């Protein structure tokens, strides 16, 4: 039932203005604009000529699923619930995805290694090297709170937990999935300038040594599965 051609259609899909949908990995970033949806929601991605938020689609291989029960963070009286699905974008789609968002949010595209500032970075939520697609953090009264702690910049990914650990405060006991967000990875050898920037972050939020990326293993497994899928059909 699942044809490679269908997979290709989903992967190569760019956008549909009438439907107000897009694939951030494929859309031309010049079509994207950023505007405040309301006082709480800032810098929402939208298509030029359309004031509504753009619904984005990405093809991912799911690594962690907490969409049903969510996971609890923190403890009473400050217990937060978040529902999320973590997924790995396919190779090359990930690079395009980051590039498009970087352009949409007007990040500097000629970074100066000696002048990298934290505010020049885009931070993403990730769980074990996979992007985390989440609801807002909700407490029992329905308030939202966001803690996101990923740095992706110039090919380097850094996951820090500084603020998250504060909010977490020894929870996750009731979390259905023990894999938490309190991990980080560096995916590529950082430049000396970037290393020094990293060194300025919380010590519990970084490792000084590089390690083989789990993403490599995940992508390897995903690639095998995709090949199997294509061979089956």
């Amino acid at each position, binding site marked *: 039932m699942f044809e490679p051609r269908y997979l290709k259609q*989903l992967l190569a899909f760019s956008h549909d203005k009438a439907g*107000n949908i897009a694939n951030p990995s494929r859309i031309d970033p010049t079509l994207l604009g950023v505007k405040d949806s309301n006082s709480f929601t800032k810098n929402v991605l939208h298509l030029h000529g*359309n004031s509504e938020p753009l619904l984005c*689609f990405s093809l991912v291989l799911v690594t962690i699923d907490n969409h049903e029960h969510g996971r609890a963070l923190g403890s009473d009286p400050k217990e937060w619930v978040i529902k999320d699905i973590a997924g790995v974008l396919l190779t090359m789609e990930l690079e395009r995805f980051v590039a498009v968002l970087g352009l949409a949010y007007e990040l500097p595209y000629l970074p100066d290694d000696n002048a990298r500032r934290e*505010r020049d970075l885009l931070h993403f939520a990730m769980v074990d090297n996979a992007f985390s697609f989440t609801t807002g953090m909700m407490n029992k009264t329905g308030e*939202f709170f966001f803690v996101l702690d990923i740095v992706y910049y110039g090919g380097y990914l850094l996951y820090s937990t500084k603020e998250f650990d504060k909010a977490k405060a020894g929870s996750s006991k009731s979390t259905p999935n023990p894999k938490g967000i309190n991990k980080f990875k560096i995916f590529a050898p950082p430049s000396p300038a970037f290393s020094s920037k990293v060194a300025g972050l919380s010590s519990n939020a970084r490792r000084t040594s590089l390690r083989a990326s789990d993403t490599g293993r995940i992508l390897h497994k995903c690639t095998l599965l995709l090949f199997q899928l294509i061979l089956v059909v």
Partner: protein
Amino acid sequence: MHSPSFPTYIGCIVPIYDGRKRQLKVPNELAKIPDLLPRYLGNIPEFTLALVAYTVSTYSPTSGARKDQVTVNLNIHFGVVLYEPSLQSADEASDEEEKDAGN
């Protein structure tokens, strides 16, 4: 021309749809997925091929070590399960991975 409006935050339910038995027409049917596909029940197995639908926004913490740093939110709206790897294929994949690691 009316464009669909998607709320930026969805608090309680993240619907997952079952796209294993029906191929969507791309891109026309992507915006109508909730009307076209049945719900997928249960947890999504690891390494399932899925389509996630989300909106993108940012926020900047007003305090703390990362004050004023732009952070991207990928606010999930729904997901579509496209292909579920069988347990067997997952085992085979991990076996091959181990062999590769051995080499």
